[in-house]
């Protein structure tokens, strides 16, 4: 039993790391503009798809990975410049609806370009499973966990230690005040979309060797990442990471210890409970409206 448990935990952390990366992307844009970007899952899909195409064209894997991430980052910037910026002054809800539209558009374009086929990227460093005690893990899973950890740390340092990161936070706090002290609010917004798209694309290329990718792969990953961000507290990037790991663990332990039939039901049940007990998420701050 104990050795099974170890496997469930290892699996949970692997899957949770992906959710964490996607959730982090949600939290970044929310932090800068109070907007939930529903095209986040499509960034994950795009990153993987572009990388698959580059590998298909004969380029080495590292080039493909960088290419996929770079292209998706550009798409993120384009999304902000072409769809979010022109709607400046619109309500948060309107902006969220724009991102939903963008996600449908990106999915449609992906369907046109890549068709309905399922694609896989090669594993970064072989497929020979590594034993951790009685549990086994794929080298690719270590890549997912390692890169997720590094990126989480980098995002944290960016917000805590750099002027630029603090400027982004300032925009989220009070847009007008930020503008008054000379912060280029528009630039900060573009920056947060670029960062979110980049994070999503990294998640996409990391997961594509294990979980494959297709034109509609972003839907489920986006949903799980969103749940992670909600669970952890939307405005808190580190909360999104914790939420992602927790969600992965709940799913894996639920499937392993209870029954695989209840896995998703269990995950959503816990999210609901958290939202009822702590509407701002586990690590979120309660929002205070000042009149």
């Amino acid at each position, binding site marked *: 039993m104990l050795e*099974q448990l170890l496997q469930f935990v290892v699996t949970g952390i692997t899957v949770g790391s992906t959710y964490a990366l996607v959730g982090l992307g949600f939290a970044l844009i929310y932090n800068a503009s109070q907007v939930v970007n529903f095209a986040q899952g499509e960034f994950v899909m795009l990153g993987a798809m572009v990388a698959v195409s580059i590998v298909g064209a004969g380029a080495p894997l590292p080039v493909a990975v960088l290419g996929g991430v770079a292209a998706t980052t550009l798409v993120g910037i384009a999304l902000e410049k072409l769809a979010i910026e022109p709607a400046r002054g619109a309500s948060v809800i309107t902006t969220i609806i724009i991102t939903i539209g963008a996600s449908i558009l990106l999915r449609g374009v992906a369907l046109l370009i890549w068709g309905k086929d399922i694609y896989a990227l090669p594993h970064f460093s072989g497929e020979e499973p590594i034993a951790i005690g009685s549990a086994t893990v*794929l080298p690719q899973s270590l890549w997912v966990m390692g890169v997720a950890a590094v990126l989480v740390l980098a995002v944290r340092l960016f917000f805590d230690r750099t002027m630029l990161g603090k400027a982004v936070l300032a925009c989220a706090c009070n847009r007008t005040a930020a503008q008054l002290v000379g912060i280029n609010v528009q630039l900060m917004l573009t920056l947060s979309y670029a960062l979110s798209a980049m994070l999503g694309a990294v998640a996409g290329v990391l*997961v594509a060797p*294990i979980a*494959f990718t297709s034109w509609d792969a972003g839907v489920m990953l986006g949903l799980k990442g969103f749940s992670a961000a909600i669970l952890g507290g939307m405005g808190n990037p580190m909360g999104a990471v914790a939420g992602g790991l927790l969600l992965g663990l709940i799913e894996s332990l639920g499937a392993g210890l209870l029954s695989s039939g209840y*896995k998703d039901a269990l995950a959503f049940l816990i999210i609901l409970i958290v939202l009822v007990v702590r509407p701002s998420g586990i690590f979120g701050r309660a929002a205070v409206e000042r009149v």
Partner: protein
Amino acid sequence: MSGRRTFLKKASICVAAAGLLGLGGVQAAEPIRIGSVLSVTGPASFLGDPELKTLQMYVDEINAKGGIDGHKIELIHYDDGSDAKKAVNFVKRLIQRDKVHVIVGGTTSGASLAMIPEAEGAGVPFISLAGSVKIVEPVKKWVFKTPHTDKMAAAKIFEDMRRRGIKKVALISGSGGFDKSGRAESLALAPEYGIEIVADETYNNKDTDMTAQLTRIRATDAEAILNFGFGTGPAIVTKNARQLGIDLPLYQSHGVASKKFIELAGEAAEGVRLPAAALLVAEKLPDNDPQKPVLLAYKRKYEAKYGPVSTFGGHAYDGLFIALEAIDRANSLDRAKIRDEIERTRGFVGTGGVFNMSPEDHLGLDLSAFRMLEIRNGDWVLVE
């Protein structure tokens, strides 16, 4: 508008010509009207698209050669967009307005089951191209079908397991309609083969990791794993099983019978066994196999025109030619006579197998229609 004008003009020219030659009374033989409702667009388009292409290709070819006994074939086709409700409306139109003699189609099981009452009520022979065993069990007077059923797939797998002395099986299945139906058929059929299902795990079709379920399976005394699934799920199950070091024989359903599965599962696919239609291994069949020439002919013709074949197009081939041969034998366009002849189909060699229909069996395929394959060195190998 302009289309109509040219049509009228043509018609009047024809009438004038006929009048001049004094041939007003002569008529061409009545065309054989084959109605079809297929899911050419929508989520099931990967099934419906090759089906329609197959029908069109052969109808055009037969007409170019002058039709059957002077009767041209008219293919009247509607696309239900993978929506069973639309299929019902279209089948009504086929029967009432287009007055078709026989219906070949119904891409999905949902659409086919919805079309059955219309065909039964109006008395039109209907050959379905969908998988569910419910279409022909219990037998309905006017309804036939050509594709293998999930029940047959389960039976074929259990037969192979029995041959290898496997008695305890862990079942794992996805969340789609195909997967669920396959799971139910497997559970129901296992006792007949003396097989005990020792685990019954499920996963969501969009899940990215099944190690938790497989870890549970590893803890049982299962002697083999059977996965009923479609899409990415089976490939992930295969990879995860290898990752966990599970070396039990792994069986997959015909849902993975495409090169894509081998490509996605990679090395982990080695040794995986699955039942599949003979079309998949047409070139590898022994030369004395009765299906070989039929399969190769269909494959070459289709691939020359459209690219890689799929077994789904093959089901349309079988449906079309079972209908045409029945019409030929009936020597009449009477719907009831056509139906009787379809039911008398014996030894028809199609892409899905050798069909022997009877009043009790409106599918007419036995287990030989499925071939047991094993994946070796990234390719299919026949293991019978």
